[in-house]
């Protein structure tokens, strides 16, 4: 999942940065090109560090009656979602996630403000986990 996050964040930044560097060099503004290259490199390194920190702080635990998630680099967030409140579990797979064979589980309750997402689950485990969580979900609309 670190690769997915890193590529998803750093790749667009690097592509735009390199395009700007090439444009500056072609125009003959060598100094500007050097500055842009430095900024792009610093940005890419910053993104990689950020991704590493985000991954380190992304934890989740399935207890007997609730799912607990903790994440966040600057603002640290923690969520607790009881299984019986789960209304729906979506499996999301973007292009990068498909390329790396992982998936993201998004848990939905009757509240639109619930923040519960489990990223980076290997595809073969995602479906199993989804079924295990749904097996513990409520049997009615739970509102």
């Amino acid at each position, binding site marked *: 999942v670190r690769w997915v996050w890193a590529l998803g964040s750093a790749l667009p930044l690097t592509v735009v940065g390199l395009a700007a560097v090439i444009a500056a060099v072609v125009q003959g503004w060598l100094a500007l090109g050097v500055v842009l290259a430095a900024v792009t490199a610093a940005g890419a390194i910053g993104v990689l560090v950020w991704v590493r920190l985000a991954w380190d702080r992304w934890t989740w635990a399935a207890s007997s009656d609730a799912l607990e998630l903790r994440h966040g680099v600057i603002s640290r967030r923690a969520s*607790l979602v009881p299984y019986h409140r789960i209304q729906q579990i979506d499996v999301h797979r973007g292009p990068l996630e498909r390329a790396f064979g992982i998936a993201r589980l998004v848990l939905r309750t009757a*509240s639109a403000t619930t923040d519960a997402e489990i990223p980076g689950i290997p595809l073969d485990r995602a479906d199993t986990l989804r079924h295990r969580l749904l097996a513990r979900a409520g049997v*009615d609309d739970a*509102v």
Partner: protein
Amino acid sequence: MTPSDDHARRSPDPPSTTARAPDADLLAIGGGGRRTHVRTLVVSGGIALAGIAFLVLQLFAQMATGQDPDGDRTWGELAPLVVVVVVVIARPVYDTASWFARTYRVLPTELVIDEGILTRHHRVLPYARVQQVDVHQSLMAQVLNLAELRIESAGEGGDTSMRLRLLDRTLADRLRAYILERRGALQSVGSTPTGPPCGATPVGRHDPTSSEATVPTPLLQLDGGQLTVAALTHSSLVVGAPVVVGAGLWVAATLALVGGDLRAGGAVVAVTTVTILAFAALVLGQLYSTVVGQHGYTIGVQGDDLYLRYGLFEVRQLTIPRRRVQQITVVDNPLRRLLGAVSITLHSAAGLGGGQGGATRFEVPLLPRHRVGTFLGELMGDAQLWRAPPLTPRPHAALRRAVVRRTVVLAAAVAPATLAFFPWGLAALAVAALGVPWGRVAHRRAGHAATPVLVVFARGVLHHRLELVPLPRVQSCRTAANPLQRISRLATLHVDVAGDPHAPRLYDLDAATADALLQRLPTPSSGLG
């Protein structure tokens, strides 16, 4: 009203095997698809017909003008008008086709609606999932003795409600009673993992065939005088009027001082007049929406349901099961504090199309503060349960943050003026000092409490808000802590409930307390004590 008034169609389903109520024939329970009342077309086509008549008259007038001696007007110039006429005619045709294509079936466990002219939609709403049922009568519907039935289920999108528009008034009332009765019966049979409803001590099972049960017990009725007080002390006036008047007077004073020729031209008088008119519009608008819009306001209990009726031109009857109330908010403002009054809002989990005024909440516009505890007890069925416990204040570190945050915000707001008018502008920095009392009051007002069945948040400086959430209604919990909060060991606690996009929250709780509440509030066992 007779059953023949609603147009019977094919009967694809076998008859119901459940006991048939005396209203069974009227409701055609388990019967075939039926259409809404044919007079619905009168309502939907009435305005269009008036529009057609107006446009046709205008068309003839244009044609007559087109034949005048100068001969400038031609059929080509009239083409846009013809297009408008065709569009206006198309609307009632479309409405009629939709009416034919739309049928509903009242089954013992669910309501089924089939609709759509080209694309057919088959929608099923199980009674067990009904959040609230409303009977809505517009002025035109009142004249025709019709009503719209709105049935809301939980959710965030627009597809969470079913609307039967329009039924005979008697049929709408009977159908509402039947759906509520079936919902209660089905829920009592099925098990719910959340256990018994919080505070919902049933007054008695609702029976639509009982004349006693169909009459709600009124708990609060507001007359015109009370609604006028509610309008004049509404937050939009308490906050909006000073802003409008203050801005107007400031502009007028500026013009009077530096306007020069403008002053001679009456600009000051014009601005003052506009200010007065804006203030009057604000007051009249609020009076209309409250005194007329909530005319005859009555809230009561009907069986295990809360019942609300209001409106003069648009009459609405809302019904919500007590167990479906997700959150109760008690709010006041400086003017209402002087009068010792508050307003109360009950939030349901219905979709955004339901509830009062298109929202998912019922508002009690005005209530004496000393009656809040008793009223909530009567309304929700358990006085002790809904009595707000003493609040736990926030830690001292939160006071520091409350003062610093507000002082910094005010300083940033006056900084441009300070720089622009330096050195005299430095006097504007005195405004930033207001952040100290502002932060102190905010800190003093904030607090929380958690009983075995309730979580309570209090906050607000101008508007005092008290948010009460039954624990069995908590969907999930969240905490968030930014770096400055982490330095002070503080965190913000959010409690997610269904139906309300703004989760109840309390800023700057002690981090350990917030984490303890995070673990405790949403657990299945917490709300069942």
